[in-house]
């Protein structure tokens, strides 16, 4: 009898350890299921609007802004950066398949040879380096304007980040761990707000859901202030009184990898307005 119990216990433990090592796809499905319960009125494709999807009034303000966005003047600068040839006569489009159209949704991806996550911004800088140009600073305004235009070429493409192989899974797990680790004086993790308390108010603002957060970067906050995804990580960490990591640090790249994976299947739209 005792032996039977031990076997049963051992089996239970094995079962438990399996559920801890759930696959990324299972993580994503579980999260969608949770949000479906939390927000029965919001359709999956509307998750890209984040907190706007929960508030029709804010959404109508957003719509009227996006109708004639005031960032269109800034965006032209990004366009001219993208289209201006390098000193050797090549352009950014030479570094990307299909001239840069409908590729941004595949980023970030895991580079097995380099054993690291490669973000779209990394690819931009790799392109500059290859053509003998100076690299851009990460999470900077110039990088923001350039990627705002470059990613807009992939508007409508579905986010399709892949996690394949041991290294990729490890990076995904590290990103997930960072997302779930409490941090800063206020002792919040990303998860405490955007998974466990999504939809609730934090002061006057509603917390957006995690799915759909990564499909629309960079965004223009307040209409004119361009912010990249990793720039936003930085702001978020400052808000919880944590010491932010550097843009393009391993932690942020893994976090971006995990976060973007969770937005898989949603259409890209860049840039957008957020207040």
């Amino acid at each position, binding site marked *: 009898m005792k032996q039977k119990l031990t076997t049963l216990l051992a089996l239970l433990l094995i079962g438990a350890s399996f559920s801890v090592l759930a696959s990324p796809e299972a993580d994503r499905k579980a999260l969608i299921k949770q949000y479906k319960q939390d927000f029965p009125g919001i359709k999956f494709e509307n998750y890209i609007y984040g907190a706007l999807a929960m508030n029709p009034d804010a959404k109508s303000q957003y719509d009227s802004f996006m109708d*004639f966005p*005031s960032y*269109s*003047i*800034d965006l032209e600068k990004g366009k001219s950066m993208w289209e201006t040839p390098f000193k050797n006569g090549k352009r950014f489009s030479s570094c990307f398949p299909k001239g840069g159209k409908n590729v941004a949704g595949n980023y970030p991806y895991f580079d097995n040879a380099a054993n690291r996550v490669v973000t779209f911004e990394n690819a931009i800088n790799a392109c500059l380096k290859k053509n003998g140009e100076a690299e851009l600073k990460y999470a900077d305004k110039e990088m923001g304007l350039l990627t705002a235009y470059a990613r807009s070429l992939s508007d409508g493409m579905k986010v399709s980040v892949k996690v394949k192989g041991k290294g990729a899974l490890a990076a995904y797990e590290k990103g997930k761990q960072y997302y779930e680790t409490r941090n800063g004086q206020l002792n919040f993790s990303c998860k405490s707000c955007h998974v466990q308390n999504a939809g609730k108010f934090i002061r006057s603002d509603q917390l957006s859901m995690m799915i759909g957060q990564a499909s629309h970067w960079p965004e223009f906050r307040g209409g*004119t202030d361009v912010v990249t995804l990793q720039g936003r990580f930085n702001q978020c960490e400052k808000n919880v009184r944590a010491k932010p990591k550097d843009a393009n640090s391993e932690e942020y790249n893994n976090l971006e990898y995990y976060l973007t994976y969770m937005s898989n299947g949603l259409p890209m739209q860049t840039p957008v307005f957020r207040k």
Partner: protein
Amino acid sequence: MAEAMKMRAQMDGDVADVKVLIKHPMDTGTMKDKKTDKLIPAHFINQVVATLNGKTVLDAQWGVGIAQNPFIGFRVKGGKPGDKIVVNAVDNLGAKFDGEVVIA
């Protein structure tokens, strides 16, 4: 300088809804250049005139209290699809900015 202005006009019921975006630094003259530590001279738009088929419908005197790349939205009674809206702006250095759009 037509590229400095973006315009759009649409009918909304029986009024025309006009939106204008002007590319302009709108320097107040009180800010300092961070690198040289010298004042940036004032450079702002001080007059905006909008006409509907040649008839003035809006005449605004502006000052320094308006942000960079100003956005103006206004609604014109009596506008019809096909009518032409022209916006002329002048800044304190005498530079002129013009834009025109046909109401859709």
